């Protein structure tokens, strides 16, 4: 689905509700996963995307299903926004055979190539390079597909960022690099990890366009992403989009969240909730009615309830499948 925002003004109701629905879907899935984690239903790590929904949704609004996304350890939101079924994402975290990766991956290894979610990764960095490589494929095959890398502020200092963005730049590959600058890498503040916290400005070093947007404003993200995706799709090469945002839950479920940031700071960012913000603006501008919003909310409650039930009741994978698919068929 392609959303033309033009500053968020000429948004159709349908488009607006898509943005809302997707953000809500992520939020509610994450909240359900967090509860499930606390209940001991999720055996491994669980990094939620709560607070950052506007970025995945604002970007994916401009992607076709044959466009591709390469995501991180914090990838539930990207998977969902790109079209992964909520129940299969949830089942994956439960370690079930019905999960997107058949229970092999868990939170950090979601693969849904059918909808262009080419994987999330437990290692910081590689997805930036892989997104660049997908861009290479599209250029070589002369398709008009676009490749997107999502990554955190923590990845910006890593060599993979430097090498990947540079290659995309010199070969003018159809790639959009989306930095989700939530200001911390685990507990290490970005302004400790670099003396230049202006990620978009890094684009200069590679000779490509860079832009910073409010990562909690889905319309702002969408507008910036639209330009970047169109540039990529039309042969204009890569761009770097930085969304300034904040995760309002701990780095991973079960981790403490103190010491490195204050409760006040977290609360202040919770006030800037991208979902509530969109709802208010849609109502204010008459783009959607309260009934329509309520209907979306109701729809999402059902999706999540269904997903949770599905995740809980699905079977575990068969132990004898544990070593399949290491090598390809041929």
């Amino acid at each position, binding site marked *: 689905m392609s959303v033309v925002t033009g500053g968020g003004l000429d948004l159709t109701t349908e488009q607006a509700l898509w943005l809302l629905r997707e953000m809500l879907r992520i939020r509610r899935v994450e909240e359900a996963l967090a509860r499930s984690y606390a209940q001991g239903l999720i*055996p*491994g*790590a669980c990094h939620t995307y709560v607070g950052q929904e506007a970025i995945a949704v604002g970007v994916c609004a401009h992607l076709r299903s044959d466009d591709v996304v390469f995501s991180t350890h914090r990838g539930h939101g990207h998977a969902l926004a790109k079209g992964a079924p909520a129940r299969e994402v949830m089942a994956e975290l439960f*370690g*079930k055979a019905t999960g997107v*990766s058949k*229970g*092999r*991956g*868990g939170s*950090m*290894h979601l693969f849904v190539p059918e909808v262009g979610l080419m994987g999330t*990764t*437990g*290692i*910081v*960095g590689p997805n930036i390079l892989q997104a660049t490589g997908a861009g290479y494929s599209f250029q070589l095959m002369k398709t008009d597909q676009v490749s997107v890398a999502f990554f955190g502020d*923590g*990845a910006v*200092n*890593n*060599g993979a960022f430097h090498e990947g963005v540079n290659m995309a730049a010199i070969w003018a590959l159809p790639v959009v690099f989306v930095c989700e600058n939530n200001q911390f*890498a*685990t*507990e*290490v503040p970005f302004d*400790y*990890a*670099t003396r230049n916290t202006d990620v978009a400005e890094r684009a200069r070093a590679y000779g490509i366009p860079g832009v910073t947007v409010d990562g909690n404003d889905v319309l702002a993200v969408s507008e910036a992403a639209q330009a970047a995706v169109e540039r990529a799709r039309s042969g204009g090469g890569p761009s770097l989009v930085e969304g300034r945002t904040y995760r309002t839950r701990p780095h991973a479920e079960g981790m403490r969240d103190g*010491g*490195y940031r204050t409760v006040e700071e977290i609360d202040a960012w919770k006030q800037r909730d991208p979902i509530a913000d969109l709802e208010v603006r849609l109502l204010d501008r008459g783009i959607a009615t309260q009934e329509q919003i309520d209907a979306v909310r109701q729809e999402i409650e059902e999706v999540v309830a269904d997903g949770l039930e599905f995740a809980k009741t699905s079977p*575990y*994978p*068969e*132990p*004898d*499948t*544990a*070593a399949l698919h*290491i090598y390809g068929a041929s």
Partner: protein
Amino acid sequence: MVTAVQNGTETGMRELTYTTAAREALDEEMERNPRIFVVGEGIGERGGNFNTTLGLYEKYGPERLRDTPIVERGFIGMCTGAAMTGTRPVVDFMFLDFALDAFGEMVNQIAKIQYMSSGRLEMPIVLRGCIGIGGSSATHHSGNYYPIFAHLPGFRVVVPTTPRDAKGMLKTALRGSDPVLFLEHKLLLNAKGEVPPVEADELIPFGTAAIRRPGTDATVVAIGAMVDKSVQAAEQLSQEGVEIEVLDLRSIAPMDEETILASVAKTGRLLVVDEDFQPCGMGAEISAVVMEKAFDELDAPVQRLNGVFTPVPYSPVLENAVTLSREQILQAMRDLMAE
């Protein structure tokens, strides 16, 4: 070659967890040597993802407990240069899987600089962190990889399994001039055990295996989390009158051939139990060494029992399916005795 005898009759022993014991070693050595510093993600104020440095930041400050950006290649290369210029870095890499991004630095630089400089430069760097399968950590947080470093000249590689060894071997690492990979199996971090008093200042030398259970009928060499499981399996078999000697390899490189060969000379049978992959692994090396040096002592072919040759899956059901259980080890012991 001395194999540590841990008979529990020593005085002043304290019960510590593996992580606490290792942290005590680090603390003692940092106090002793102001040139030791630690780098890693979250090892400063936070005290380390696995509490490896808890409390040390307050004691030694930010220069000696240095939080880093997510630049594994960068900080390992950085520490290479530091080690070349008189300080003694400890790289706390969290999971060995992450440190693979620095493999070029490790293999081309760290392992070679003493040699290339004809011994005029030293390379006293400790690379420490987690290995192993467990807790649904999935494929990017479960690697073992130690045979890779044993294959290459230049490294010392240890996989301690007890709190006492964790402490004593980390202290040894922090006093030597060679690069050491100090690898901690994630399932052992909270294991408890007796540790000598601080005053003992115990250093456990590399290149020594430990006899965890004496026996006469067959030898098992086990590594990491497999040691305890093997001892348990051996206890069970003991009820049937079969006495298995269980060696904890603990020093991967150098490897204690002497203790292994002495045990095989006694028992005539050998099984290597290793969670890590089979091809070109530690079992292969041990089997080949025994082939070369004790062929005539063997009453049966040396056997290997390894984790399944596959990336590590997440789901507990699958994770279980690729690691080794006590039952599998027991079965392998029985099979060995039946040969």
